């Protein structure tokens, strides 16, 4: 695209979140780009941090009202249908707007997205902060966007091309904090801190461990500043961590608890942090309680031996039970998660998992249906494993070699019924 260099590049970022939440991803993109001296005065940002239930035509209306030169949309499997519709409308109404998509739903299948969605001009693959800034810089300099590392784009002749991969950001502290820079204002219950990227586990259905590779951490100083800011923001009584494993190491947990405890004493609470429950003992549970943690989320996802092996998940029932009991003794509610439709699981395995969880009386038992997400190991091995799933987002499982389509639907209905019964208590 060509850009009139006399005027700032009007860049609109669109997030479609669950109600009550904000897009940390967009916060990072904007904070990183705003800190790029090369873009100062050349790019003007507006963020539309909305909820996924807003009518796509209304979102497009608001975006078009800002006459964007570039629209950047964060796409997940949950908001993809709306996101594509918004981009389609924007492109029709304002063809000169460059439509840039990023996020886990499009990054791993960038070329396919560009081939299928003519409204998309550019897809950012993988970690977006540096690539998006470089993309904006290329536009302001009148350079071809398809040569920016980490993007796939439509070339002048209409063909879809991919530039080379961009390495992961070596130092996460080079990404300015959206909270500390004022790009995002924390909201009660909807603010998240990310203290590291990557996951020690590599579960086949999950994007987290595969998309980010090795674990990279934000510095303790940076995390401490974010904690202090969120905990002292007027009206913010609770927030959470987006980390895949909050108790990543004993030292890390001890440090986090030490930073959070003074705020917990004054009433700040952490909700729904994800823990590796098999590492939790009474000492860890006490640390979590002192940090203000009121609820944690954990597996087992399945207790079926075949599914666990296929999905590369470890599960030790005795240690799992011990972890739940330790947390309950510390007064922390546990959400046990199970997935219907994992390869290798039968319906009987799935309900054995529910029974296992109910017997623990953890607080919440939550079931969800498998989504075969782009970029995951299951997505790549779907054919080999005989998984049939909806090719359209959110890519829900349709059938497996061990569970038919109809039995999946029946299992969902029964699981929801059991969850409602369990939740219905004084």
């Amino acid at each position: 695209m060509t850009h009139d260099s006399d005027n700032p590049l009007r860049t609109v970022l669109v997030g479609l979140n669950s109600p009550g939440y904000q897009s940390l991803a967009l916060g990072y993109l904007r904070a990183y780009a705003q800190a790029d001296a090369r873009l100062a005065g050349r790019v003007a940002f507006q963020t539309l941090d909305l909820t996924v239930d807003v009518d796509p035509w209304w979102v497009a209306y608001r975006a078009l009202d800002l006459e964007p030169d570039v629209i950047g949309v964060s796409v997940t499997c949950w908001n993809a249908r709306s996101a594509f519709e918004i981009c389609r409308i924007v492109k029709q109404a304002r063809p000169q707007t460059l439509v840039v998509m990023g996020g886990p739903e499009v990054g791993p299948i960038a070329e396919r997205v560009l081939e299928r969605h003519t409204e998309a001009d550019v897809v950012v693959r993988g970690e977006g902060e540096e690539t998006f800034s470089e993309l904006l810089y290329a536009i302001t300099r009148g350079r071809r966007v398809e040569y920016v590392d980490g993007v796939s784009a439509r070339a002048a002749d209409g063909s879809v091309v991919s530039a080379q991969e961009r390495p992961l950001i070596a130092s996460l502290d080079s990404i300015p904090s959206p909270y500390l820079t004022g790009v995002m204002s924390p909201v009660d219950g909807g603010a998240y801190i990310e203290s590291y990227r990557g996951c020690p586990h590599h579960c086949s259905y999950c994007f987290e461990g595969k998309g980010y590779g090795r674990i990279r951490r934000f510095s303790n100083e940076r995390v401490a500043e974010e904690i202090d800011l969120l905990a002292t923001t007027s009206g913010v009584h609770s927030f959470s961590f987006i980390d895949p494993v909050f108790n990543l190491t004993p030292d890390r947990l001890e440090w986090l608890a030490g930073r959070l405890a003074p705020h917990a004493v004054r009433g700040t609470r952490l909700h729904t942090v994800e823990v590796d429950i098999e590492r939790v003992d009474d000492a860890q549970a006490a640390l979590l309680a002192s940090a203000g943690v009121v609820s944690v989320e954990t597996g087992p996802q399945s207790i079926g031996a075949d599914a666990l092996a296929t999905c590369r998940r470890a599960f030790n029932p005795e240690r799992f039970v011990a972890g739940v009991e330790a947390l309950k003794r510390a007064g922390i509610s546990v959400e046990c998660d199970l997935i219907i439709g994992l390869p290798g699981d039968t319906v009987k395995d799935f309900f054995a998992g529910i029974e296992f969880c109910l017997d623990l009386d953890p607080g919440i038992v939550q079931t969800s249906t498998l989504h075969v997400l782009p970029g995951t190991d299951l997505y790549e091995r779907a054919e080999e494993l005989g998984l049939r799933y909806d090719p359209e987002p959110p890519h829900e499982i349709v059938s497996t070699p061990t569970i038919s389509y109809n039995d999946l639907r029946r299992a969902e209905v029964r699981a929801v019924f059991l969850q409602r019964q369990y939740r219905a208590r004084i």
Partner: protein
Amino acid sequence: MLEFQLIEVGSGGRASCARCGASPEAATYLPTEEVIDCIRRAVLEYRPPGPNIRFGGADAFGHPELPVLVSAAVQEGVVRIGLETDGSALAAGDNAAGALHAGVRHIHVSHVDAAGALAGIAAWTQAVRAAGVDAVATATVPVCVHNVAELAKAVAAMAEAGVAGITVDARSVSVSAEVTAYVVAACDTGTVNSVWVEVLGPSDMLPESHSLHRGETGDSR
């Protein structure tokens, strides 16, 4: 899977199909202290998660001191309290809201008198919405030759009223291709309306394709 200990508040008085010819005996209710003793025993003997109890044996709303019984259950630490009813008493006055306020979270309706059952489920659903708490209604449909053809319709009506799960008690009907077709239709109607339908009866009542709907009591004949 989630076990409820039945606490009998009395016996008799339960409606049954008028066309089958059985006339209900008058309900009799147990003394309050006797029922409270049963609650205490249930709390001592429960298996997690719980303790969970369900007042039944006769329509729970017929017990003259039901509020005392519910209050005693709360005091004893019961976390899930259920009531069995034919539904009509639940629909009367503020009974649904009152039961919720007292701590009842599970209502189990016997679907014999369809109008009464549906009115009770609807009143409960409305009260639950107004209170903003987690609570569920379940139902049992005793199947006989006179209502089997209407099973799917009954399931649809209860789903619309807000029931979460239905037990189709087909233990007193003989298996035939026709009966199986009706029961299968009831199961499918539940599934498409997000209501779980469980079937009690001989294992060959349901084809293999619908084996998930077989009740936990299995072949109970």
